[in-house]
């Protein structure tokens, strides 16, 4: 529960200071997202004392708004700028999670961010992993932050 609260705080801080977008959690939609539709996912891998992945699943409409806020442009398709922006959101969340899980951050290494986007796809849980998923609401829709840690 503490980890969940810290992820919520870190996400809200990133969106309020860097994206200039109001978000709230928990969402009335619940934290389970099922099949992802018209979504882009940013992923960061964690290795070391804690192994797993941090992912942020962002509907295209929300991703356009995030990228537009970052860059001051209007978008209506997935471009390199959108991939870069969502990757950077995952990167900042990964850095925060690293410092939450490891004092001084010394015991965990982060991968570089990567993204995947599509009309319909699933994001599966690592076998035996402990999963924390949180839904966030914003004006353009609902996005999810998910942490899977191997146990």
């Amino acid at each position, binding site marked *: 529960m503490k980890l969940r609260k810290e992820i919520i705080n870190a996400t809200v801080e990133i969106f309020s200071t*860097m994206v200039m977008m109001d978000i709230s959690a928990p969402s009335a939609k619940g934290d389970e997202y099922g099949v992802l539709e018209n979504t882009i996912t940013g992923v960061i891998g964690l290795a070391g004392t804690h192994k797993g992945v941090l992912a942020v699943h962002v509907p295209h409409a929300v991703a356009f708004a995030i990228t537009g806020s970052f860059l001051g442009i209007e978008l209506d398709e997935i471009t390199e700028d959108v991939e870069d922006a969502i990757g*950077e959101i995952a*990167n*900042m969340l*990964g*850095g925060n999670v690293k410092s939450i899980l490891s004092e001084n*951050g010394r015991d965990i290494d982060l991968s*570089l961010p990567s993204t995947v986007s599509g009309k319909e796809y699933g994001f599966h849980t690592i076998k035996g992993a402990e999963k924390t998923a949180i839904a966030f609401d914003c004006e353009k829709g609902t996005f999810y932050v998910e942490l899977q840690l191997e146990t």
Partner: protein
Amino acid sequence: MGKNVLLVDDSSTMRKIIGRSLRQAGIDFDNIFEASDGLEALDVLAKEHVDIVLSDINMPNMDGISFLREKSQRDDMKDIPVLMISTETGEDIIGEAKSLGAVGAIKKPFTPDKVNEVLGPLL
């Protein structure tokens, strides 16, 4: 001669955000150079007059720590100050960066006020 800054980050979005934050903080540079990793940064430093570098740590090809190490061995650029701007702010990695010449660190996410607070005294 006016002041020039070099922004080093593999995310073009983040480079734009840092540039915008500098303007919002009221810090004006004559030229803002950009590089997407440490290798590109060394290239820019070899060719351009740069007063200060703002660099990420976690980057492909050459990360921020390797960039600092390489730069510290080059007489033509070893005295140019580097401020780290990164999600990586653990004491160990920042300590290593400082031992290689970094003058400070800003944690992502950051505000223009934070950039001003840390960068202002260095200019």
